[in-house]
């Protein structure tokens, strides 16, 4: 496997991304970035199957528009990792800021700990070919999965008494599903979101996701393979239709 190591100490994001692109063009299969400290846009618009290990804390919009690569972050991530991401994977061994997986179109974002506000907002989907997945090990702040049009958001609430305690879950959701470990209080749901029973067949559907998440973070999946979840989806596919009348 061809590995390239880049020391990003004090480096601006543009030359850093140029180096990453050059390495990918040169056939690198693995890139290790050391001393990352706040550089934004790592992997922005990047294509290919490369695996990028990020040692440090990347800045905002990690993996934005990314199409294919895998980024493993050994640290926390800033604002909006996975923003409008197309395919590929982000694995973050820590927490991340607001708008994680914003408008995501495909691929996976796994966050070991917590995320900020507006996680998974406006995620989309086209059938099964492009179905984005966001998994949060800890908890998320308000407006999780707001305006969702597709995809899956899964919150495991590891180490928390309740997986979700912030409001506005799934406001305006018109596609996709938000699955949360344990019970979710009704008042936490946003307008247009509805709770559904989490069945054995749902578990069967999401267990590969749970297993894959656990594998990345060295967790025992057995702990999570039951039906103790709440599934939240759209109350209707046209949540706004009742708000408007034509001239």
């Amino acid at each position, binding site marked *: 496997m061809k590995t390239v190591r880049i020391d990003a100490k004090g480096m601006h994001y543009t030359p850093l991304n140029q180096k990453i692109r050059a390495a990918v063009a040169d056939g690198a299969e693995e890139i290790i970035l050391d001393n990352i400290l706040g550089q934004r846009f790592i992997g922005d618009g990047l294509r290919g199957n490369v695996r990028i290990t990020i040692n440090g804390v990347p800045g905002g919009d990690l993996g934005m528009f990314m199409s294919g690569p895998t980024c493993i972050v050994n640290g926390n991530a800033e604002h909006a990792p996975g923003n409008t991401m197309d395919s590929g994977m982000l694995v973050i061994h820590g927490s991340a800021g607001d708008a994680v997986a914003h408008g995501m179109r495909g691929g996976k974002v796994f966050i070991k700990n917590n995320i900020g506000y507006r996680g998974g907002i406006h995620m989309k989907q086209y059938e099964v070919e492009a179905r984005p997945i966001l998994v949060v090990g800890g908890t998320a702040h308000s407006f999780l999965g707001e305006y969702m049009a597709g995809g899956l958001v899964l919150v495991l609430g590891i180490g928390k008494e309740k997986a979700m305690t912030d409001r506005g879950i799934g406001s305006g959701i018109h596609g996709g599903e938000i699955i949360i470990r344990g019970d979710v209080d009704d008042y936490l749901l946003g307008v247009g979101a509805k709770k559904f029973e989490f069945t054995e067949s749902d578990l069967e559907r999401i267990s590969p996701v749970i297993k894959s998440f656990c594998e990345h973070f060295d967790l025992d999946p057995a702990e999570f393979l039951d039906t103790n979840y709440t599934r939240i989806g759209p109350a209707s596919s*046209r949540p706004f239709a009742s708000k408007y009348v034509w001239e």
Partner: protein
Amino acid sequence: MTLGSVPPKFKVTIDRDECMDCGRCIENCSYGVYRREGDRILIESRKCTACLRCVSMCPRDAITLTEKPVDYRSHPLWTREAREDIINQARSGKIILSGMGNARDLPVIYDRLLLDACQVTNPSIDPLREPMELRTYIGKKPSKLKFRKTESGDVELDTKLAPNLKLDTPIMIGHMSFGAISLNSQLSMAKAVAETGTFMGTGEGGLHKELYPYQDHMIVQVASGRFGVNIDYLERGAAIEIKIGQGAKPGIGGHLPGEKVNEEVSKTRMIPLGSDAISPAPHHDIYSIEDLVQLIRSLKEATEWKKPVFVKIAAVHNVAPIAAGIARSSADAVVIDGFRGGTGAAPKVFRDHVGIPIEAAIASVDQKLRDQGVRNEISIIASGGIRSSADLAKSIALGADAVYVGTAALVALGCRVCGNCYRNLCPWGIATQRPDLVSRLDPEAGAAQVSNLIHGWTLELSELMGAAGINSIESLRGNRDRLRGYMLDEGMLKILDVLPAGA
């Protein structure tokens, strides 16, 4: 239904002496106004939207359409519209949605601005004989140029120039998405801009693969819904436009009614079939001007700094300082969309009451950027209700680099501004996804009509410039001395920085 019905908006009649009973009106009307019963064509006027398809297709000119056939008691305050809106809301308790641009009878500033021409003291220029320079570059310009001497003694440019769009005429077609309008309309306009050396916007419905051959003339849009946005889309566009706001509905997001979300639209937008495509009001990754800079840079970084990035805002009260903020971000052009801008669907109260006229917005943005010494570094694109080459010339004289037209291009395709775009029934094959209706619009013929319009305006613009003794669009840009205000108040003249007629 205690409220009863409101009077029909239109009355359709057929002159039975002229009618040859060909049935074209029945075939052409997608709203179902006409039907045959026995040997007679029956008319249901209440269904009419005045799209004028039947009138245009009737071989005998036998159809007459009258607006407002039934009068209310006249009242200056309680207009028909005011009364009917109340009746509608008393029935429904909902927000009223409407199509096309602002429909209120407010004074049009363009109509109160007059252009200049030369007489005696300096000669006018004949564009037939003299070259007229209409070429316009949209994008960042360096504040100064640095040169370097090579060893051989030549002089070379040292400054790195930012990518610009090269327009042969300062008329572009604004963003109307696939979904809101049909693929055949987009194709017609794409062929037309490629032929006339200019550009069009994709809107936020992605770039259909049939448009790939014209991608060098397409500006791809990134709006709050992020529909259709991926790296391939960004790389295909000649430029990228971030849509923050739209003149028809400042401050709120987009709304594509589920009726128009068919298989193909659902695929490009990645939303469920038949569900409303909602773009949220803000971009949820932009909550501040710093975040806007971040989005601009993320787009540039993704496309390796090869594409100009525009930012489109609605013309609102503080448009000038907002544009100044955008000028200081990494944006290459600011697009200002005035309150008369069109739309497929907008809450009526927004369409008719929010935002300011584009004329005032151009003038104040241009002035603010000049005051701050950055006007030369960023381009201004104006849009929202530009109907003719005169509006175009006035926009440039007020300070715009180029304009976007939307409704005007649709009218060139057949649109009669009936305002029913949201119903997916557009009989002209424009604002619809219904295959039988879409096929009425032939992209070849449509392209010819739109490029004719662009040609016509371009010729008129050259003539207007020539008459004013100006042979380069740069000398018209921001040249407010070539405008005079007529029946405009002092405050407005001051904002426009234009003298009154006679001064």
